[in-house]
């Protein structure tokens, strides 16, 4: 109550203040560039006020000002000037400015401020950087371009979500994604607002809301990183804020038409390093003791006496490829030879085509821009494609000198067919393990019979018997994948409207009002069509489902800006406002059950069972009042204080309101102290802020679900408490306090700029679905579990090493280091533990004092001298009651390196990005080692590769006798001691070693699933040719540019072995980003673009 009173008082004060009227005089003038050409649209502002105007098409302006006023003349790309409004007309010449010092950037709540006045670090990214390489969305164009901003694009292509993480991990369990604000309106990022992360749904890789923002429509982007920068967004700002401004028409250019077209081919970038020497089969002991085959060479005898490999084996320890003729499981006779790199045949060559046409115009009365974008995309994954239509309108209407109205409207239609499905069932499940003998073409042919039914297993006696798979094979999951994605369909069609209207009114010369409303509406329809897998007479199968999802976000804010003139040295701006946002969500889904009665008729009426209908709805309300106070002392000291008082419906009513203050200061040292001559500029920044992170809606509820099921003649109605994610009616909001210092310097006539920041934050009341033991009542419970601290350094170095008439080279390097630590745990929680590989064989655990993301596996049993102990069979064993530390999952340093080299009309832009430190966990890779699929597992499999020779005495019991002249040459003796302490002399086979040492749980050595993850990636390159202006003019173009582009090209360096991709992980959570669960291959794009303007 006290706080709401405070807010009211601030608002009241703002209302009560009125500027005292002053004598005015008229001043006019012309603004010209260095060559004397008029500059159009230049901002002319009376210093210390918000009162100002723009120059017209002749570069002229006229303004009413106070008698002793000073004018500030600013224009993007030119150096700011201050001119006393002494005489009239004024003749002002602006010098070009490549330093960006006087850039005006959009900060929180859509307030524009000069860069020099900021007291906190902020990264800005230009339109060119976002669009030039043809990225299908703006977020994955940000790799390496903003210090402290980590981008992770899920594999699969244009429909896969992009995670943006600013300054490390602020929340263990809550969202780690920033708030996206487009033209002042917060937009939806999550598909389902009752969740706070995205990854995969039904094994298909999720998208997220930012994919719908058309990169071609973005004018500029600011990333607010620290708590002070984002404090005005309160509880949504703990993970930073991405502020996007879309393109407008401009009066200076008049009518303009831009046409851009980009086409890239999408290919598999790299894949695993598989061995191509041995076919499917197990080791001798497994073969003989399991009764698979008595033959020691691993061949299986057919009833007619001929031989075949063990097609059922998931391991690749079978006979060496020798070219003999064998019967393949499709019935054909083939030479027993490897199908080298057969996994590549699984993938397609896709494409990405983007056409953008934009029309813009402007005059003194206003301006507009209309843009249309069409995108067609075919993924490298079989059966996945999409298209998008995007319409965007952005207009400003100047009603009179004092009132203007901005309208931004975009409509986006997406159609996604078979969103890429993760390959976890193929790479992380033995039932997907195909062998190097397998022919991908046969899988692509066999997944469906000629009658349209699902493939016929060897033991299926029911239908299409002439197309039956001849033998018991292993990789049914691969056939299922193809069936699912080539025969069946899952389609999403999404309409999204984002509209906003902003009214600007200059009430008085020094009092301005701005009101804004915005709506972000999404309507998504989902259709599932699964064909009948077998004739309906043999049992119903298949499925039809139809669902829809509607998201509405209604946003409004209103603010008053008051800028009284205090003294000549000190100016002040006070802003007060209110803001509110209501989010609504509705979901429903209906689907057939127990199969379809009439084959392949997709209708709910065709359901064999009762139609299953589900629905959900949700609503969230957030309201806040806020105030900002800006002080500017003689243009070298800037101080800003902000406060936001907020209430949210996602917290229990008793504790649902919070106050979020912040303060920051920018001090331009070089204006006060004499700098050495090589130093042009130096600025110090300091800031402190408090932001929050409240739980996702309804998470804190303690409530029962009620179900009704028909039972005999009546029904059973039952209630069920939550089994996981148990709520908490005493929950408090997470609070992040951050302090930040920064230094900005420019040297050597602005050819070298260095910007450094240090931050230190503490996030208290970590809201966490703490994993709890089932005996606690649920497998996880929502608690304020403890405190987390982060600190880090960020830096950006910008340089122009070469700057001559024809050649320029500019380069930008940035880095970000973040360290975090869990300070304390509370509420019955003693550690944060994730059971990554079920069974506790690989866990991620942090106790108080640890950083997040420590990886542990079971150690090997050892004697007190540190020797490994082998068991009776000759293998190492696990000590399952202990854990050993394997490293941390989070990166230590990330960043990028961008360059632009131009020579006359040619230019090359290229970007590298890097990551060092931290581990990648890949359980699928581990299983592929155990199955002998990888090239690395050839070690010891013959004498040339270190195998020792032996004879088989008793195959079933693994009794092998070392013998230099033995019949087998793939033996090993594992260094170690027996349980009695004697030196181990037991001979095992290399296949047996891989098979047992990297087995599923049991005595598996999961340390082999943890890899260092360092890389430097050549992210993008753009080779452009700009048509000389005189030729373009003749062709009636304003500009014409051709480019060759490449994205996600290759790794200059990577530490993960076996051909594994460092960016294989899926999901927005910090943890899932370090864990590979068997996703899809990475995509490389190569193509060309043309950009023309008329």
């Amino acid at each position: 109550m006290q706080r709401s009173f405070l807010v009211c008082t601030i608002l009241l004060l703002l209302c009560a203040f009125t500027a005292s009227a002053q004598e005015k005089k008229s001043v006019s003038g012309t603004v010209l560039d260095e060559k004397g050409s008029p500059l159009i649209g230049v901002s002319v502002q009376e210093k210390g006020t918000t009162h100002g105007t723009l120059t017209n098409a002749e570069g002229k302006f006229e303004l009413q000002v106070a008698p002793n006023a000073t004018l500030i003349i600013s224009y993007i790309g030119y150096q700011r000037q201050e001119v006393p409004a002494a005489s009239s007309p004024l003749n002002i010449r602006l010098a070009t400015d490549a330093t960006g010092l006087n850039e005006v950037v959009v900060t929180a709540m859509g307030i524009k401020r000069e860069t020099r006045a900021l007291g906190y670090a902020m990264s800005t990214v230009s339109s060119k950087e976002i669009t030039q390489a043809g990225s299908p969305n703006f977020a994955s164009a940000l790799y390496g371009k903003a210090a402290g901003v980590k981008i992770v694009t899920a594999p699969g292509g244009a429909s896969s979500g992009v995670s943006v993480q600013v300054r490390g991990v602020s929340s263990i369990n809550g969202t780690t994604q920033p708030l996206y604000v487009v033209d002042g309106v917060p937009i939806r990022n999550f598909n389902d607002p009752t969740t706070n992360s995205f990854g995969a749904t039904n094994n298909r890789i999720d998208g997220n809301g930012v994919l719908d923002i058309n990169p071609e429509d973005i004018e500029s982007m600011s990333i607010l990183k620290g708590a002070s920068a984002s404090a005005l967004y309160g509880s949504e700002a703990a993970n930073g804020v991405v502020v996007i401004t879309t393109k407008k028409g401009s009066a200076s250019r008049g009518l303009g038409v831009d046409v851009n077209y980009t086409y890239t081919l999408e290919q598999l970038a790299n894949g695993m390093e598989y061995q191509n020497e041995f076919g499917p089969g197990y080791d001798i002991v497994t073969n003989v003791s399991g009764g698979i085959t008595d033959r020691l060479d691993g061949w299986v005898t057919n009833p007619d006496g001929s031989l075949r490999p063990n097609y059922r084996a998931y391991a690749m320890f079978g006979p060496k490829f020798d070219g003999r003729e064998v019967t393949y499981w499709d019935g054909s006779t083939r030479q027993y030879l490897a199908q080298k790199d057969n996994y590549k045949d699984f993938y397609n060559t896709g494409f990405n085509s983007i056409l953008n046409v934009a029309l813009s115009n402007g005059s003194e009365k206003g301006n507009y821009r209309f843009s249309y974008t069409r995108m067609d995309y075919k993924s490298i994954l079989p059966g996945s494609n999409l298209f998008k239509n995007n319409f965007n309108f952005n207009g400003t209407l100047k009603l009179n000198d004092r009132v203007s109205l901005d309208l931004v409207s975009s409509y986006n239609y997406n159609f996604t067919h078979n969103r890429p499905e993760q390959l976890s069932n193929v790479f992380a499940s033995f039932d997907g393990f195909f062998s190097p003998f397998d022919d991908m073409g046969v899988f692509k042919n066999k997944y469906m019979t000629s009658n349209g039914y699902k493939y016929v297993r060897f033991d299926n006696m029911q239908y299409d018997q002439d197309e039956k798979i001849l033998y018991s094979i292993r990789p049914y999951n691969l056939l299922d994948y193809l069936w699912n994605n080539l025969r069946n369909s899952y389609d999403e069609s999404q309409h999204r409207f984002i509209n906003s209207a902003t009214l600007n009114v200059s009430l008085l010369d020094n009092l301005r009002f701005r009101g804004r409303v915005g709506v972000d509406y999404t309507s998504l329809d989902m259709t599932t069509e699964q064909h009948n897998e077998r004739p309906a007479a043999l049992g119903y199968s298949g499925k039809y489902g139809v669902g829809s999802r509607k998201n509405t976000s209604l946003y409004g804010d209103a603010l008053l800006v008051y800028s009284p003139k205090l003294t000549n040295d000190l100016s002040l701006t006070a802003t007060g406002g209110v803001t509110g946002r209501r989010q609504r969500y509705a979901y429903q889904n209906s689907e057939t059950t127990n199969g379809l009665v009439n084959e392949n008729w997709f209708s709910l009426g065709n359901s064999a069972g009762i139609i299953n209908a589900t629905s959900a709805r949700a609503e969230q309300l957030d309201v806040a009042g806020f105030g900002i106070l800006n002080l500017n002392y003689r243009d070298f000291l800037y101080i800003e204080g902000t406060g936001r008082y907020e209430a949210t419906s996602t917290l229990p009513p008793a504790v649902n309101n919070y106050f979020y203050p912040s303060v920051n200061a920018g001090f331009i040292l070089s204006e006060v102290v004499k700098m050495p001559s090589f130093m042009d500029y130096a600025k110090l920044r300091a800031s402190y802020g408090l932001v929050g992170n409240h739980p996702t809606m309804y998470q804190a509820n303690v409530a029962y679900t009620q179900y009704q099921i028909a039972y005999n003649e009546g029904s059973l109605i039952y209630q069920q408490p939550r089994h996981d994610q148990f709520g908490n009616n005493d929950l408090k909001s997470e609070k992040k306090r951050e302090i930040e210092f920064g230094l900005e310097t420019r040297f050597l006539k602005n050819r070298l700029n260095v910007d450094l920041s240090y931050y230190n934050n503490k996030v208290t009341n970590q809201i966490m679905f703490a994993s709890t033991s089932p005996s606690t009542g649920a497998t996880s419970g929502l608690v304020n579990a403890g405190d987390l601290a982060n600190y880090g350094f960020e830096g950006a170095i910008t340089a122009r090493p070469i700057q001559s008439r024809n050649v320029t080279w500019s380069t930008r390097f940035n880095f970000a280091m973040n360290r975090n630590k869990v300070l304390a745990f509370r509420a019955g929680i003693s550690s944060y533990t994730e059971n990554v590989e079920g069974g506790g064989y690989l866990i991620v655990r942090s106790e108080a004092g640890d950083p997040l993301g420590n990886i542990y596996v079971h150690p090997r049993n050892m004697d007190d001298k540190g020797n490994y102990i082998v068991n009776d069979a000759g293998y190492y064993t696990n000590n399952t009651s202990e854990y050993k530390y394997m490293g941390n999952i989070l990166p230590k340093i990330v960043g990028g390196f961008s360059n632009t080299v131009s020579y006359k009309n040619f230019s090359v832009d290229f970007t590298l990005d890097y990551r060092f430190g931290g581990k990648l966990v890949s359980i699928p890779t581990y299983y592929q080692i155990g199955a002998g699929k990888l090239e690395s597992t050839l070690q010891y499999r013959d004498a040339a590769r270190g195998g020792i020779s032996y004879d088989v005495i008793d195959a079933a019991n693994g009794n092998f006798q070392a013998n230099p002249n033995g019949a087998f040459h793939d033996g090993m003796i594992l260094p170690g001691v027996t349980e009695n302490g004697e030196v181990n002399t037991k001979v095992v086979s290399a296949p047996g070693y891989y098979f047992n040492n990297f087995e599923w749980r049991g005595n598996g050595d999961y340390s082999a699933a943890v890899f260092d993850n360092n890389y430097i990636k050549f992210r993008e390159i753009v080779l452009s040719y700009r048509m000389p202006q005189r030729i373009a003019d003749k062709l009636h173009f304003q500009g014409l540019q051709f480019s060759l582009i490449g994205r996600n090209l290759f790794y200059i360096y990577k530490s993960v072995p076996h051909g594994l991709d460092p960016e294989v992980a899926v999901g927005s959570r910090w943890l899932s980003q370090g864990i590979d669960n068997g996703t899809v291959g990475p995509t490389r794009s190569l193509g060309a673009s043309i950009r023309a303007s008329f």
Partner: protein
Amino acid sequence: MKRLLINITILVLLAGTFSACKRQLEENYLNPELTTTGSLSKLFTGMFINKRIHPSYWDYYTFIMPTTAAYTQMTALAPLTQMYVPSLDYTGGRWTDYYNGSLGTDYNYSGPGILNSYREMQTSYNALTPAQQQLQEVFLKVAEVVVYDQTSQMVDLWGDIPFFNASSLNTDRIVEPAPFDDAKTIYDTLITNLKALNTYFATVTLDPSISSELTAADPIYRGDLSKWQRYANSLRLRLLMRISNTDEGTAQAAVTEMLADPATYPLISDNSLNAALWMSNPTLRSDMRDALGGSPFAPSFLLDTLMLANDDPRTEVYWDQHAENGWKSFPYNGTNAEYDALGFATYDSATFFYNYNVPGVLFTAAEASFLKAEAFERWGLGAAQTEYENGINQSIDFYYGIYHNRVPREDAKAWPTLADPTAEEINNYLARPAIAYTGTTTQKLAKIYTQKWEHFFILQAGQAWAEYRRTGYPALQFATSSYSGGQRPPVRLLYPPIETLYNPNYSAVQARDTRDTRIFWDPS
């Protein structure tokens, strides 16, 4: 003045907006799809939807077939290196379902937990007025029978488990890791409390409104408290016999008291009194085709040695012959190649594979009869042979009952109708030397145990495993696995990491957490 008026208006407007907002914020806190009002009867009903109580695909496929059925040879195993090392994910699922269950309406995979439903009942009960508490107490009492049954099954699998202080989230709404309670103490408590329940059910009178609420909420007995009394007593008899090999004195005294006074301690003495949850197609149904499909073959001891050799009348209702190979079973030491070649007898198509109405079995008359037979035989309390033969007759009747009550799947074929065994056939069976109640006490007990084992079959494989461990019968042979540390079936399950990783109290029982630590009632 004018300005003041304007300002006051603005303030009033603001104040109005704030209070409207405040109300709206509170309304939006709660998920409109959920209720915060717990109902004792509805929470009680939920327990029967637990997927370990009714036959679910997940329970059969991931737990019963590879674990309890496999370790009692109710199903044939293809040799695998880790066949005697149960998956900790799957056993963890069994563990979690007792405590938490999972939300959802696909009953093959989801359903409420037992203990957290019961704790929520207690929490809701405590929030009632004393008058309402007195009315609604019966829901807690019937729920206790279900909880005690399921809790004893947890003890049979793991030994010590968190029980008395478990489910703090459901009671105090806080995370408070529960200690592991001593298995014997839990059993003793259950046995004591079941006796009190007998008295309660015998004496309570229900308000008519509560009585009809219970009738609607109770899918197994439709609110008939006399049947609940029989279930409670039969369960108590089971638990007492379970401890009788390690604490014979206690067991013998209590059992003697019970069996001497059937009027005070009525038991489940007829199949019409069975505690069994029958299905209701299509909303709640057994999905056995896919569940048994992974391990469908008849094991040789049960089929050949016990059933075929003695013309067991249940053979046709348990098993289907293979089309070409007839009654061919899979030997305990068969090979993978043999298994892959197929061609074995399988579970019966009409009764199991293609039947939507396989019940969830909690307690049957046959088990009560066999328990009585054992007590009579060991302690001379009565005519053991009568109870033994009763048990066999009730078992035959029970399995044919499932056959008759079957609800065929859509893709079921028109198999020839199975005739009920005649009295003559049953008598011939009872006269077989291997079946007839003859021989030494040890031999007789072995016959009781073996018949009970056969009766449990896959429907109560957990009971079969517990009794096999307690009694050592039937004498099964197991193939030896080459897997070091897992060559024979375990005698208990390891605690799943889902519990041990997050419960600091695990350290107190960690030393005993091995596959060779016997449950307290396991004598050998």
